[in-house]
Structure formats: structure tokens, C-alpha cells
């Protein structure tokens, strides 16, 4: 058997499209291959276990035949974030990245699974118990124009969490706010100004200062640079890096900018339609993506050299991302995957270790045969 291109032709039969050999796969012998599914590590600062966020869309009302549907924005995500690292989360618009970030902070309530922070299950904490945890878990938002209350001064915006948690009192609030402003590179003279008096980059710095005010351990950065000019993007990324080493922060960096993610992240998770399809260290995922979706995604990053850029091969996916309402059965990606076989339509792939510390969810690859084609 040449094993160049195998085609799954039916129950237990695999046919080689190259030489025509028909092989019967013994399910028992398949099982003997040890596939290690991904499990969050015990020392993780934040761990997600089979996290689900499903929304029920409202039906069309009394006189409509439209039925209520379920949007599976996040559909069973398991990963962990280690102390002091940056986990990059990439994926197309609408794949559930932001919902996932919000679900970790309980800004959206998960409908299934668990969010574990330092060994404590936060999923079922009461609102007031969760408020205490909010000191340690913070968020930086995508749109610096929408994330600051237009009717509050910078001092009030950054000072609000300090007052809420009574981190200090009286005049020292102002002093703390001024120190925070200088930490993020804003002049303390601006304390009485309103958000509309600042540029996008400065506003994002205000948002970062506000998140830092409670001295958090873990920050979800939800596309913090995608609304900014390229020159400002670099500044904000550098600021985030400096703050990370200074304050020993842990980031979940959500972005669709693959180069930014590569620059900032220690590990990268690739998300497609509510599921994690690949999770590995940054270098390994960018050099050798295993999942067909990651391969396509990474081949879309332009190379800053016109000659290489002109020659290199790109994987163009057909069609659009399917709707998260009634996502395709089996592997969510099978409708666009160039390597899909019949079994992909029925079997839901598990995130398993293909190479050391490199996990992917695809039934067509395995530790013995990590290359798909």
C-alpha cells in the first residue's frame, strides 16, 4: 500500500486513490494507538473545561412559524492558561472568540462546562462572590471609543474600580490614578479630561490603566489593537509586553491579527465555529500548522517580501464560515476542508496531542501520521 492518498470508502474500508488498494481497518487495532486528549494542567491559573455558551434566539412570536434556534457561540472549549504566559486566541470574525473571553469573566454566563480560576470553579459563583474575583481578572476591550463612558472624566473612569474595591481612600485615589496614568504613558495633567478629547491610542491606554487599577493577575485582551492605526498598534503591544514583565501578568490575547498574536503569544489556540481546533506553542503552530484550518489561516498571512509573497502558495478556503445556528455535524470544518472524508461529517474530532505539546482536533491526523496530505 502506498498510503499516498487514502480515501475512506465505507465502514472499516480505506481505499488508496493512488494505487487502488483496499484496506480493511480493524477498529480494535486503531484503538491501540494511544491518543492523548488535551487536559488542563493543575498549575494553570485559568482552566476551561468543556465550556459552552449557547444562546437561544427568540422565536418569531405568536403568529410566526419561525422557531427559536440555538446559537452555539462557544461549543465545548477546553484549554488552560499558565501563570505569566500569553495565550493567543485566533479565529475568523464570528467564531466565538469574544464570547469565550467574556464567558471566562462571566460577563456572559456560560451554559455548560466550567471556568476554573486557581482551582476554584467560578461558573456557579453568585454575583456577589464573583465580584470579589473580579479584582484578579480584568479585560481590555476592542473599541476604545465604546469602552469608556463618554460622560465621565479620565480620573473618574480609572478611579471607579479603586473606589469600588476601596483599595485606598480620600486623596490617595487621585494619586493612585495619576500613577496609573503615568504607568501607561499618559500625562497626569489629563486627569480632568473627557474621553472624546483623546486619540484612539490614548483611549486604549486609559482602558488599560482602568484594568490595571485593581492590580489583576489575569487580563483578557479582546482584540485590543484591531481598532487602532498600525503605528499605534505597535505602541500598545509594546506597552502590554512591558506591563506583563513588570507586573507578572497573564494574558489571553484575542485577535484575528496573526502577526500580532505571533509577536505577543507564548502559545496559540486556533478557534473555528465555537471549538478549538489547534493548540500549541507559537513557533510550532506558525512553522508547522497541523490542522487544515490553521494551515489555511496561517497561509493567509502576507510575507513582507514581494518576491516570496508572489511565489508562495496560499490555501484558499471555499465558501464562508457556516452559521453557528445549527453548525455542521461532525467536524464543524468539514464543509470547507479540502481533506474532508465521509467520516468527518459524523465524527466529532477531539483535541488530541499529535506532537509533543502540540494538540489538534482532526480525525485525519494522528501521532503516527501528523501530516495530512
Amino acid at each position, binding site marked *: 500500500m502506498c498510503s499516498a492518498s487514502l480515501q475512506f470508502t465505507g465502514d472499516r474500508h480505506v481505499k488508496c486513490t493512488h494505487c487502488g488498494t483496499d484496506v480493511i481497518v480493524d477498529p480494535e487495532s486503531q484503538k491501540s494507538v494511544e491518543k492523548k486528549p488535551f487536559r488542563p494542567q493543575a498549575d494553570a491559573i485559568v482552566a476551561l473545561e468543556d465550556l459552552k455558551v449557547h444562546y437561544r434566539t427568540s422565536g418569531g412570536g405568536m403568529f410566526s412559524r419561525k422557531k427559536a434556534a440555538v446559537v452555539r457561540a462557544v461549543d465545548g472549549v477546553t484549554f488552560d492558561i499558565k501563570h505569566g504566559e500569553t495565550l493567543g486566541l485566533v479565529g475568523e470574525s464570528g467564531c466565538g472568540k469574544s464570547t469565550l473571553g*467574556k464567558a471566562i*469573566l462571566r*460577563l456572559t454566563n456560560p451554559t455548560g462546562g466550567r471556568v476554573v480560576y486557581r482551582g476554584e470553579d467560578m461558573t456557579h459563583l453568585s454575583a456577589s462572590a464573583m*465580584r*470579589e474575583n*473580579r*479584582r484578579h*481578572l*480584568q*479585560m481590555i*476591550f*476592542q*473599541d476604545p471609543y*465604546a*469602552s*469608556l*463612558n*463618554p*460622560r*465621565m472624566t479620565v480620573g473618574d473612569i480609572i478611579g*471607579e*474600580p479603586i473606589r*469600588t*474595591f476601596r483599595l485606598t481612600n480620600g486623596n490617595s485615589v487621585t494619586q493612585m490614578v495619576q500613577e496609573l496614568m503615568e504607568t501607561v504613558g499618559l500625562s497626569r495633567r489629563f486627569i480632568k479630561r473627557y474621553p472624546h478629547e483623546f486619540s484612539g491610542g490614548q483611549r486604549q491606554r486609559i*482602558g488599560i490603566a*482602568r484594568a490595571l*487599577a*485593581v492590580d489583576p493577575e489575569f487580563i483578557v485582551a479582546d482584540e485590543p489593537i484591531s481598532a487602532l492605526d498600525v503605528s499605534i498598534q505597535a505602541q500598545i503591544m509594546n506597552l502590554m509586553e512591558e506591563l506583563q514583565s513588570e507586573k507578572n501578568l497573564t494574558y489571553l490575547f484575542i485577535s484575528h491579527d496573526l502577526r500580532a498574536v505571533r509577536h505577543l503569544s507564548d502559545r496559540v489556540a486556533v478557534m473555528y465555529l465555537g471549538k478549538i481546533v489547534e493548540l500549541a506553542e507559537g513557533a510550532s503552530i506558525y512553522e508547522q500548522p497541523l490542522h487544515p484550518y490553521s494551515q489555511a489561516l496561517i497561509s493567509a498571512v502576507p510575507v513582507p517580501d514581494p518576491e516570496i509573497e508572489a511565489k508562495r502558495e496560499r490555501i484558499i478556503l471555499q465558501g464562508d464560515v457556516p452559521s453557528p445556528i445549527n453548525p455542521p455535524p461532525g467536524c464543524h470544518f468539514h464543509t470547507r476542508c479540502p481533506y474532508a472524508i465521509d467520516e468527518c461529517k459524523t465524527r466529532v474530532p477531539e483535541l488530541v496531542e499529535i506532537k509533543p505539546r502540540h494538540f489538534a482536533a482532526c480525525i485525519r491526523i494522528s501521532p503516527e501520521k501528523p501530516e495530512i496530505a
Partner: protein
Amino acid sequence: MNRLAYIGFAIIAVIVVTAVFAPLFASWDAATVPDTALRLAPPSGTHWFGTDVLGYDVFSRVVYGARISLQVGVTVTIISAIFGMIIGAVAGFYGGFIDKFLSGYLFNVFLAFPGLLLAIALVAFLGAGLGKMILALCIIGWVGYARVMRGQVLKVREFDFVQAARALGASNLRILFIHILPNAIQPLIVQASLGMAGAVLSEASLSFLGLGIPPPTPSWGTMIEDARTTYTIAPHTLLFPGLAIALTVLAFNFIGDGLREYLDPKQRRR
């Protein structure tokens, strides 16, 4: 702000000054003590707007009538706006069952009644009088504000800065009052200035129907009712209170439209 709004503000300013300093311009006695010797006299130097069927001085009654109209307009608007704002904000902010009950059921019940008809029924039930009329008008008025407020809160509560406040541990009350309300209230200001016109009109209508302020206290609506039988022979008895109502309502509408344009940048002219 456009020119009509300024005209509106000017008219209202004149009416407010007239109402507040009514004794400087007119005499209470002339408005409430009938001079039977001088009935239905045409406008003259002593009686600028003439006298009515009982011999009251129409000018004095129009001046003192402004007090009632403004009192009713302002109190009804403030009370129903505040009440509607709270109910609407609660419905929009908490959503779920609370919203289903409030906006799906309670709002619709109140909207289903023809407003003035409900007010008439309420006044008939409660009895006549200034306070009772204000109460009746508030009962029919609050739901309009509640609906606008609910929609606004639904919109504003999804803004990132509200999520940020939640992530920073702010309490529900703080989020509602510090973050949502100040950013949701603009359309309510417009609604309130238009509502002021509506309240003035409703007061006049109720008084016209004899359900308003008991005589001899002057009210524009009562004056029109009194003039109903005499306007063919003495048109001034109808004309002046009618003009007063029209001007007041028009002025509030000008202000409302002007504010709407001013507060909504999409409608603002360059």
C-alpha cells in the same frame, strides 16, 4: 438649535413670567369676582380682552389661567417622566421575566386605553380638583416615557463601557445610575418637552369638559367651556383663552423639535 426653538423658548419665557408675577399684570378680584353690570363687554382700555358672560375680566383670567396650565404641565411632566424613567429602566436593565411583565403586559395595558378617556374616567372616579387631575394625567402619561426609556436602556446596556464597569465589579445600581442613565436620557428630554404641550392640552380638555379646576379659579379650558354659548355674540371670550392654549402648545412643540434636532447629530444641519 434652530430659530423656531428660540421662538418657542421666548414664548414660554413670557408665559412663565406672566404666571409667576401674575398679580403685577392682573387682579385676582377681576378674575374671580363677577361684575354683573359689565357682561360680555368688548375689549377696551380698562378690560383689554373684554369681559365674559359673568362679567369676569378675560385678561385677568387668561393671566391667572397660565398659572394653572404651567403648574399642571410641569408637575405632570416631571412626575410621569421620573416614574416612567424608573419603570422603563428597570424593564430594560433586568430583562427576562421582569421585562416581559412590564413592557409586554403593563405598558400595553396602559397604551391600550385612549389616554384622555382614561383620564376622564379617573377624574370622575377621584373627583375634581387640581391635585386629582395631576394624578390622573400622570397615570396616563408615564407609560410613554417608560417605553422610550426601556428602548434606550436596552441599547446602552450593551455598550462596552457598561461591560467594563461590570468587569470592574460595579454594582447593578451603580451601573444603572452612573453608566446607563446619563447616556440614555437624551431622547427623554425631547419627549418631556413635547409631553409638556400634551399635558397643557389635556388640562384644557378636562377643564373644558367640566372635570378640571372647580370655578371660580380661572383655567383656559374652563374659559372656553364658558364661552361655548357666547362666542357668536362675543368672540373675544373664546379667542383669547384659545390663543393662549395654542401659543403655549406651539411653543413647547417648537422647543421639542428644536431639542430633537440639536441632540440628534444625524438630523443636525451643517
